[in-house]
């Protein structure tokens, strides 16, 4: 039967962004306070699930036209690439580098290659979870 989901859909649009922002926040906070790529990724997945709940698979796919398998691939490449970058400096794999930079807008900022790695984690988590959910949801 047709159901009226206007209320849910409207809220979701707002809530989605709150969650998404929170996910990003948690992701970035990870190195210093609880959080990190996993939670961030999973929370983003949660946000996307909420979208799927409120709308439907087709609509969401239209709005977010990602092939999540590719997202997985990119994430893995990013993580692996960060880790493997050290190969070119002939230091053990996974040797991270970090330093404090003074950037024009942000002031004193710590840049850490671990962040890039964590970004890979984030992408993989989102990609995998979404692949699974979309596959199940899309199953006939």
């Amino acid at each position: 039967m047709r159901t009226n989901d206007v209320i849910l859909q409207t809220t979701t649009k707002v809530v989605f962004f709150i969650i998404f922002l929170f996910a990003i926040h948690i992701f970035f906070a990870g190195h210093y306070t609880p959080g990190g790529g996993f939670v961030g990724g999973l929370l983003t997945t949660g946000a996307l699930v909420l979208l799927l709940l409120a709308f439907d698979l087709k609509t969401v796919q239209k709005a977010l036209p990602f092939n999540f398998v590719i997202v997985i691939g990119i994430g893995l490449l990013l993580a692996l690439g960060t880790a493997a970058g050290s190969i070119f400096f002939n230091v053990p794999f996974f040797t991270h580098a970090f330093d404090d930079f003074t950037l024009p807008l942000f002031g004193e900022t710590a840049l850490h290659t671990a962040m890039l790695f964590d970004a890979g984690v984030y992408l993989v988590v989102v990609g995998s979870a979404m692949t699974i959910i979309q596959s199940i949801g899309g199953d006939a």
Partner: protein
Amino acid sequence: MELLMAILIGILFTAAVYLILSRSLLKVILGTGLLSHGAHLLILTMGGLGGSSPPVLDKGASNFADPLPQALILTAIVISFGVTAFMLVLAYRTYGEHKTDNMNLMRGNDEHD
């Protein structure tokens, strides 16, 4: 505290194994879920529960909980999530093909030919 946790983990494992041995496919999957919870709590317990603050650098905090088991658990959680998701899909696909979720009816009949 550890005594309590050990007993709790024992209960989790008991329940998990009991469910895994049951005939219903869904129960089996629930069992694996409990199993991983038990395992994760066990790692945490084995690392010691005496820490008084989270392993995050903060003013004044000194007696950190052991961070290593936590990291291990985190890894284990994510892995068991992946496996659970996989099993779940496998379960429904199996149900779809076999039209039953009774583990007893899923014996390998053609093994003894």
